[in-house]
């Protein structure tokens, strides 16, 4: 287990430096990822003006940056190009490489988006409670894990179809709609709210932001953590199974 952590960390550091090589492209990615939360902020500031909305959207911008997942580009493209053959031969789990890249991109996304968040906070006098942030931290870590597993799982479709990008895109659409960016889940109509709380999308994105914005009671937080744990286990098990099935299908020509 400790060896695994060391491997992931090593890959993360390597990728941090490597991705810095194309930092201008990285900045365009960050702009692209921050546009939907910012649009959400604009729309909801017009629809239901108030401090709470701004606080929530600053929080969700941060969560979005720290949970971005590009496995359809990293993993799926590696499967299409046959690049994962090299990784399969190495004496380490293949997921270590994917995970390292994922973490590196998340760190850069967060750092590059930080000025935008600070700007909004300065312009709007949004204040976060340190105690809320403290509780949001474990939820954020869980969200990072769940969203990674979700995107990873969808990207594994590359073993079966040429449309892995479309499959992940579909997942991202659902995440945008039900994850808390299009609308905070607390503002959903009653029946939809209950569904939204239970679905995995809030666990990946909205939940930590809601805690950080300080709108949740103790029970709601507890239920949220339980759902996160449930989805983590579900996605983890399915991902393991699908990975093994996919590997059995994987063939590559040439050398």
């Amino acid at each position, binding site marked *: 287990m400790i060896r695994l952590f060391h491997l992931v960390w090593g890959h993360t550091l390597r990728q941090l430096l490597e991705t810095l090589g194309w930092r201008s492209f990285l900045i365009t990615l960050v702009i692209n990822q921050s546009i939907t939360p910012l649009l959400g902020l604009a729309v909801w500031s017009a629809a239901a003006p108030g401090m709470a909305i701004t606080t929530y959207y600053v929080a969700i911008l941060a969560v979005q940056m720290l949970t971005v997942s590009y496995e359809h580009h990293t993993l799926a493209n590696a499967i299409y190009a046959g690049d994962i053959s090299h990784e399969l031969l190495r004496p380490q789990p293949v997921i270590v490489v994917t995970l390292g890249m994922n973490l590196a991109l998340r760190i850069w996304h967060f750092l590059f988006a930080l000025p935008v968040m600070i700007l909004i906070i300065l312009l709007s006098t949004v204040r976060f409670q340190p105690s809320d942030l403290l509780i949001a931290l474990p939820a954020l870590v869980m969200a990072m894990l769940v969203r990674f597993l979700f995107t990873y799982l969808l990207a594994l479709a590359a073993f079966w179809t040429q449309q892995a990008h*479309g499959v992940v895109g579909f997942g991202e659409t659902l995440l945008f709609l039900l994850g808390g960016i299009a609308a905070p889940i607390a503002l959903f109509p009653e029946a939809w709210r209950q569904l939204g709380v239970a679905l995995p999308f809030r666990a990946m994105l909205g939940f930590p932001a809601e805690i950080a914005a300080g709108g949740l009671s103790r029970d709601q937080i507890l239920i949220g953590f339980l759902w996160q744990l449930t989805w983590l286990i579900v996605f983890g098990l399915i991902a393991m199974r699908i990975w093994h099935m996919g590997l059995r299908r994987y063939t590559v020509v040439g050398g």
Partner: protein
Amino acid sequence: MRLFKIFGAIVSIALRRDLAFRANLVFELLMSATGIGAAIAALAVVFTQTPTLGGWRFPELIVLLGSYQLMSGLLAAFIEPNLMWFANQVRDGKLDELLLKPVPSLFMASLGSCAPLALGQSILGSGVLILGLSTLGTIPRPVDIGAWLIMLIIGIMITWASRVLIATLALWAPGLQLDVVYGALWQFGRYPVSIYPEPLRTLLSSLVPVAFVATFPAQALMHGAEQSHFITGMLLTCVATLSAGLLWQRGLRRYTSATS
């Protein structure tokens, strides 16, 4: 005239090629449909909290969304396949092939190939637009439809010219890849410009004319066109098209190809 003929041929060939892969067509349509469905659902949630958004009612915003999807489909079908990652073409010298053809190079570079499957989005968008109009219960007068068409053409011209301008910058700075930024700015067209806070609002209807993508055409269709929008639109079209052509000529002079 000749360019129109060539353009028709390009579209027809691409269409025949794409229709050979019917599963992709179905998949593409499904993706567009879910995207539009998600956008409508998101709007529906917003309107549970407020009767109007930036002065627009729900069905009016549906019309705007339809216009937006219509334009996005056109952009994705005809312009993006050519200019997406244009900097890469400059860097590895692929532009040579374009320059050698006996057709204006700007035409070939910006409209030389297309992805007709993306038009599915435009068709669905038009459907959404009609749906919005019918919920609104007003049938637009012929004058308004005319105004809408003109605003649409202005929008298309501005879109084309601005996309060319962004891509042409690659001839000066090949490392600069603004493609994703363009896509991100494009997203602002989803909502009426009136919801954005002030410095942004003026910016979006002048210097970065996102308002012409959907807001102004939808407005023209429902409430008749405003003269000021027409005038700024025409002006912007002229300025953008001229500077696109000029910058392209200038930029080409800097292009040195890559050795093969």
